[in-house]
């Protein structure tokens, strides 16, 4: 482990972090723009040309706002909770392979911060920890609406983690690896996993919506019933942290969906036009980000189209539809993978 290696990793981490925050920042702008356009409006267009300085204005507003901490709240936990939310949201970016590797000055620099051999489990673990930020925040506010929002969030996330895990297991069985880097590398050309696992991809995407608390599964912050949900009592930048965490989660979910099912940084036929491996790596990053941006747009598109589920519908969908479907998907995948053994056992 040389100093150069450390510096390279440090730079990569900083870039990933900065890009994540930048995209989360502009997702807030994109959300409002997309919402506007889908509703025949124009969206924010006053701050700067086309309103592109809107996120900056929002950030300034959030920083300048008065900070309120309820006197009956649990202060320590109240302050820790938004940070925890943002922390877990930012932690997931390290295992995403943002591209292949760059060859600079005779050395290979991978564009993945770390290729853990349990990458998928790491992602899953961090996501499952993410609910603590919401739960602690909701409980520490000492407000019934917040608590109900937190309880809803936790039960929703636990319920959908099951179906998500089962659909990922089917993916692991077909790919044969837990490393996210290898999964992305396997999908070169047209070998995208969605063609192998269409049902699994569908379940995963639905669960990703539920895990990120986005509409139509945004019951933890359901305004009609719970005021603001778990962040009712939050103000100024603590509130901003929660919103930011939501947008980072959306970005990371899009990245994970693209990497798992839509080929990651791979694009079919691109190898015919570009020969240089470095250029190919850069194109890979561009393709991945194109897929991620489409994913983010898809998240917003769904949000402004589909009305929110009722809570019993949410639970029915999770436990009575998605889990049996994912188990069916798992059984089908296993059968397909073992088809030769089964054939041999039955007919020979």
């Amino acid at each position: 482990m040389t100093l150069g290696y450390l510096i390279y990793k440090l730079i990569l981490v900083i870039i990933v972090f900065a890009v994540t925050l930048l995209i989360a920042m502009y997702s807030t702008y994109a959300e409002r723009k997309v919402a506007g356009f889908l509703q025949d409006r124009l969206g924010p267009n006053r701050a700067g040309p086309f309103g592109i300085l809107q996120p900056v204005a929002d950030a300034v507003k959030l920083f300048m706002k008065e900070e309120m901490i309820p006197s009956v709240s649990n202060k320590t936990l109240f302050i820790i909770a938004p940070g925890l939310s943002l922390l877990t949201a930012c932690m997931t970016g390290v295992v995403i392979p943002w591209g292949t590797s760059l060859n600079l000055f005779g050395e290979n620099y991978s564009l993945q911060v770390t290729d853990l051999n349990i990458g998928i489990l790491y992602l899953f673990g961090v996501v499952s920890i993410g609910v603590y930020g919401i739960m602690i925040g909701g409980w520490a506010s000492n407000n019934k609406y917040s608590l109900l929002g937190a309880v809803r969030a936790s039960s929703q996330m636990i319920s959908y983690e099951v179906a998500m895990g089962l659909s990922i297991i089917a993916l692991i069985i077909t790919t044969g690896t837990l490393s996210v880097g290898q999964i992305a590398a396997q999908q070169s050309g047209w070998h995208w996993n969605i063609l192998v696992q269409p049902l699994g991809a569908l379940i995963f995407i639905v669960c990703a919506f539920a895990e990120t608390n986005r509409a139509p599964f945004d019951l933890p912050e359901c305004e009609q019933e719970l005021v603001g949900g778990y962040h009712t009592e939050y103000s100024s930048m603590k509130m901003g942290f929660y919103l930011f965490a939501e947008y980072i989660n959306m970005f990371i979910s899009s990245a994970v969906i693209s990497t798992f099912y839509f080929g990651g940084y791979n694009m079919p036929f691109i190898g015919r036009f570009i020969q240089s491996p470095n250029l190919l790596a850069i194109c890979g990053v561009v393709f991945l980000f194109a897929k991620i941006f489409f994913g983010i747009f898809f998240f917003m598109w769904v949000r402004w189209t589909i009305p929110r589920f009722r809570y019993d519908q949410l639970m029915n969908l999770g436990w009575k539809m998605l889990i049996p479907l994912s188990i069916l998907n798992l059984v089908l995948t296993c059968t397909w993978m073992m088809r030769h053994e089964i054939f041999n056992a039955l007919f020979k």
Partner: protein
Amino acid sequence: MLPLTNRSKVVVKKEMSLSEKIYLPAIISGMMITFSHFFKKKPTIQYPEQTREFSAIWRGQHVLKRDEIGAERCTSCGLCAVACPAEAITMTSAERKPGEEHLYREEKYAATYEINMLRCIFCGDCEDACPKEAIFLTDRKVDSEYNRGLFTYGKDILVEGIEKEKRIDVTKRQTPEVLEFKKHKEFDHNVVFEKKK
């Protein structure tokens, strides 16, 4: 009850078919609808840069007119205040002193004249009631303020300026009959102060 349109449908709570139960076709068609709106022309009017056209008879902020030489036409008769359904108009009268003939057209004039713009409903009844063609509603908007008290407009705001360029043009609020009538200088109503002497 008679239906107002022929678009109403009777709600039928029937068992959902399989394609309805799995939600996806409905979701996809819904998303196509919203996506088609993405490219539609936006009806938004960018207000400070673009403004909507006013109709010719749009009723906005009032003006108290002066006559040709710049004397106030209002004689403080109080008919506008009586006509006002919102009771927004108040005034106090005063007698014209010698030497003020260039300021006030008649012997009696309004020392104060106030319209509460928060009460005013911009119906235009004051304009109809005025026998002296003194008050008109114009196409100017009433500005927003930070304070309720500032919405009580006095003579300083309501009376138009003496200078030619500060006069408010209200000809488009006057019917052709009125405009025709105004051409006849022999009628007392139209006579300029000096000629009356």
